[in-house]
């Protein structure tokens, strides 16, 4: 699905990603963990096409296409979805209105007809139920006045509406109470098929009790430095990151 090779990226003059490798296949769930400032959100932003970051080296292949050559919207239309760590508030722009425009532009991109108003509304009902997002919130201005947890749920609602191939969830669990966490995780699990894939960025093992990853990666100082199964998350939760730093130092 996605193959990231030797990815280097910088913002202003600072190098943040320093040769990152990661391959995710269809049907897989990958977790990325790592200390604050390691570059997790930067990776997500670079994949989504944020222009503040400059890719200086490396390649990203997304289903046979060169991802780095595409505009942000093209990546989204090709099936890449980013659930933002900090979703923005957009006063005056209604959630469902913009989603309808998004869906229709994606359909147009694929040479399909626009969605009918009736089908769209049915979809809104179905998908908002999936993440137990109040229908009123679904039609309000994007994230305006939403609580932290509501914003995260809205991200997953949008993911459900857009039905992406690859979803990157950047700390979607932070700010969620235990019930919301369960609901969001449930939503993600229900959307899971053998044809799509998910990357979850998180600091907490508890999310991974609900969304069970096939692989857990440690991102440290701009690189993936360790990969393991779901038990690696438990180990990190228990021991922190120091032992990994020590392992790295020893290897040098």
């Amino acid at each position, binding site marked *: 699905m996605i193959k990231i090779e030797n990815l280097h990226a910088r913002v202003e003059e600072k190098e943040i990603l320093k040769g990152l490798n990661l391959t995710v296949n269809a049907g897989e769930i990958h977790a990325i963990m790592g200390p604050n400032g390691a570059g997790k959100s930067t990776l997500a932003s670079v994949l989504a096409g944020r222009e503040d970051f400059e890719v200086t080296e490396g390649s990203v292949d997304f289903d046979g296409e060169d991802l780095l050559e595409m505009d942000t*919207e093209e990546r*989204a*239309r090709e099936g890449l979805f980013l659930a933002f760590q900090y979703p*923005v508030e957009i006063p*005056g*722009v209604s959630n469902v209105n*913009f989603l309808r425009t998004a869906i229709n*532009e994606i359909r147009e991109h694929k040479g399909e007809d626009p969605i009918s108003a009736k089908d769209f509304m049915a979809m809104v009902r179905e998908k908002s139920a999936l993440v137990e997002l109040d229908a009123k919130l679904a039609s309000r201005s994007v994230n305006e006045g939403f609580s932290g947890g509501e914003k995260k749920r809205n991200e997953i609602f949008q993911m459900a509406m857009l039905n992406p191939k690859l979803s990157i969830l950047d700390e979607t669990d932070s700010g969620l109470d235990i019930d919301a966490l369960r609901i969001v995780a449930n939503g993600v699990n229900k959307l899971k098929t053998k044809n799509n894939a998910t990357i979850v960025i998180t600091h907490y093992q508890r999310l991974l009790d609900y969304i069970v990853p096939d692989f857990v990666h440690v991102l440290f100082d701009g690189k993936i430095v360790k990969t393991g199964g779901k038990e690696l998350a438990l180990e990190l939760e228990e021991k922190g990151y120091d032992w990994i730093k020590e392992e790295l130092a020893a290897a040098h």
Partner: protein
Amino acid sequence: MAVIAENTVNFTKALAPTSLSVSKSNIEKAMYTLENSPLPTTRNEAWKYTRLVKIGKVKFQNTKATIASIDPYKIVESACTFVFVNGHFSAELSSRVIPAGVTCELLSELNEEIGTSVNLENELFNATNTAHLTGGIRITISAKTVVESPIQIIHVLKGDHVISNFRTIIKAEKFSKSAIVQGFFSEEGEVNFCNNITEVSVEDNAFLTIDKIQYESENSFHINTEEVQQAKNSNFTINTFTLNGGIVRNNLHINVNGENCESHLNGAYLLKNKQHVDNHSIVDHKVPNCESFELYKGVIDDNSTGVFNGKVYVRQDAQKINAFQSNGNVLLSDNATINSKPELEIYADDVKCSHGSTTGQLDEEAVFYLRARGLSEKSARQLMVSAFIGEVLNKVENEQVLDFIHGILRKRFDWNL
């Protein structure tokens, strides 16, 4: 009458005196101003940000013209639609089914003297309008009349260097309720000038809404002066949409003369290329217990310039006034300019007033967010602009007016929402 000396201003030189029954004393006052007042410069506080030099250079004339169809300019479907081309009434294009309780009189057919409530002293454009009045209409909504569908007045300018000096007089009598739609357009022709005055009197307990759409050509001039008198318990709303025009100036003057009035002033302007749009408003609270709400928003692109100058006076005895005023602007280009000056002058002590002005760019984070969901950059920006201006559009109650505005936005600004 005094011997008429040569006008000091060029732009009226080629114009014939009005053939309408304007009162002699008004003509004299107007002529005096035309003879003695030069074209205002930017040294004049009221014209600080709007240069009139271009207007001064043109020798305007007034000619009759015909247009093929009114369809492109019809804002609402109304059996009571008056069409004026270059300020002259067009019987063929108009539809004179006058609602019961309403009187509509053409000033050109009026058998009485036409007076005025606007200031003629030193006010060059008011004076021009008076001395060279082309046409006009007087609309009276008689007491207790409720008019369901709006009365529509459409103006079209056609030809080169044409000036229309037009006067609309609206009298909303006691307990009446009505809506007026005004449209200003131009068709073929260069450098035209619409110099319009609307005098409004909203009597006790009357309810009046004016929706005004300005959509003339990019090299035209437009000066619109509204002089509004509100009597007690009245409710007046004016929504101004400026969607095209070269130099546009709106002078909106609301005199709140009676208690328990509500005044609503909303405006939206979307500018591009070299357009210059200047909204000057005055709300004058002379008596206690009134409320006024003013909301103007602008989207300014390319090399265009927006000017907002909103004054609210609360006179000494006008206690318990709530006056709110806000002006927001989005600049879409580095060369776009806004001069925004909201002003409160308060002489009473028990009042609740606020004013504010904001200017910014579109939130790039939000644009990125929308694009990350698959929207093109253009759609993302449009959506945000439309959300911004939507606050003003939401004030319009008439759906047909809204649809018409959206039609223009699609045509002129390439919106596809």
